[in-house]
């Protein structure tokens, strides 16, 4: 196997061992504190090896922020899954969401980052915390301190992670690796330019259909090298332009879904006593 594949295997083994040590269950006669310490070290090594697999942009500041957000999302995820107290789990999930939001900003999706912070970290997590406060478990209950089949679950989930990471690192991109780069010129990766180039090679009817497939409004406003020129007001206007024209039906269906969820939640949360006929009353 190649270098990248060995790194992937190492990452998965470290992650599996660290997470299964951190999960809440009794580790034989080992003290919980020792198991947590060793599991924590292994999880940090898992995060380090996973970061070693990443190849962010060569810019210093953006690469630094990318590594920062990536590390906090992976470590926050491990800590969220293995926390005994459910309030701690909810707070680590908030940290994961904020790290993911940072990665959205690095990918040029600023509106999505802002709306994710507002909706996820602002509304959904607060609702979770309210429900946890109502249930008042505090992490001392038996069902919080027990993990269900931790070894089987760890093996299967990290086998899935190994399969995903292996197929991601083995498909091209790095020098001297087995695998194929995406064929074609780099500029043709962009959907818009691929459609334009295909449209020029074919007769006019096919070109007309192809130009309707990926119209100008559904393309990011990039320049020739695939760089988004600025982060000005064009961003939200462009997103709105494609959202309400190309995906109008989806938006309407999402609105109906929200309404149904609202009505359903209100109906389920306020149970009424059933109306029973009085005994002795006959029609």
């Amino acid at each position, binding site marked *: 196997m190649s270098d990248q594949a060995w790194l992937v295997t190492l990452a998965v083994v470290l992650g599996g061992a660290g*997470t299964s040590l951190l999960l*809440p269950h009794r580790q034989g006669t080992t003290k919980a504190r020792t198991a947590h310490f060793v599991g924590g070290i292994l999880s940090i090594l898992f995060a380090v090896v*996973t970061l070693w*697999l*990443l*190849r*962010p*942009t060569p810019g210093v500041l*953006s690469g630094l922020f990318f590594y920062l957000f*990536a590390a906090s*999302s*992976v470590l926050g*995820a491990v800590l*969220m*899954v293995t926390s005994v107290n*459910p309030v701690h789990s909810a707070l680590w*999930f908030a940290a*994961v969401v904020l790290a*993911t939001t940072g*990665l959205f*900003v690095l*990918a040029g999706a600023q509106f999505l980052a802002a709306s*994710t912070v507002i*909706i*996820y970290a602002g509304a*959904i997590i607060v*609702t*979770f915390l309210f*429900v*946890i406060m109502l*249930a008042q*478990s505090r992490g*001392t209950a038996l*069902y919080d*301190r*027990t993990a269900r089949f931790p070894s089987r*679950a760890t093996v299967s989930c990290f086998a899935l*992670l190994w399969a*995903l*990471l292996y197929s*991601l*690192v083995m498909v*091209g*991109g790095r020098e001297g690796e087995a695998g194929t780069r995406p064929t074609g010129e*780099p500029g043709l990766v*962009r*959907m818009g330019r691929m459609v334009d180039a295909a449209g020029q090679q074919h007769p006019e009817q096919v070109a007309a259909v192809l130009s309707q497939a990926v119209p100008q409004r559904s393309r*990011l406003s990039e320049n020739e*090298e*695939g*760089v988004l020129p600025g982060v000005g007001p064009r961003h939200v206007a462009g*997103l709105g332009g*494609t959202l309400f024209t190309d995906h109008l039906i*989806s938006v309407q269906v999402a609105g109906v879904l*929200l309404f149904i*969820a*609202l009505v359903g*939640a209100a109906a*389920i949360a306020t*149970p009424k006593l059933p109306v029973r006929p009085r005994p002795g009353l006959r029609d």
Partner: protein
Amino acid sequence: MASEPFGFDLLTSYLILGAALLALGMLGFLTRRNLIVMFLSAEMMLQGVSLTLVGFGRYHGTWTGQVLTIMILTVAACEAAIALVLVLVLYNRRHSLDVSLWQDIRDPGQPPVVDRPEEAEPLEPSRGPETYPQLTTAGIEPAHPSLSTTERRD
């Protein structure tokens, strides 16, 4: 940042992070028995998928990835509302957030999942009132140095 080209290696990095979040969320969903933590793990799987979608959308130069992520956000909000209401209803029935209490709605004929306290993580005993900080009772003047009250300067 957005002012740099989004190459294949950066896309692979986003996909790796999305895969990691998905696998860890799946681990939390399968392992934990608290209803709320199970649901939080499912939400984390959705976050991993959102990262993948945003990466692909930026790589191919279309808005579609971000639009699909907005749909995921909407569906996750609806799902959170209804799931938490259902969790509250279930909690009102049994006064516990344990999902093993509802095993009888599985397929019939499955072996029951039994709770074994010796497999649980040992509970750290919380320190009692003897470790609380000792404060002076209100109304009792604490001991002063030998200066009288007229000569003290504080």
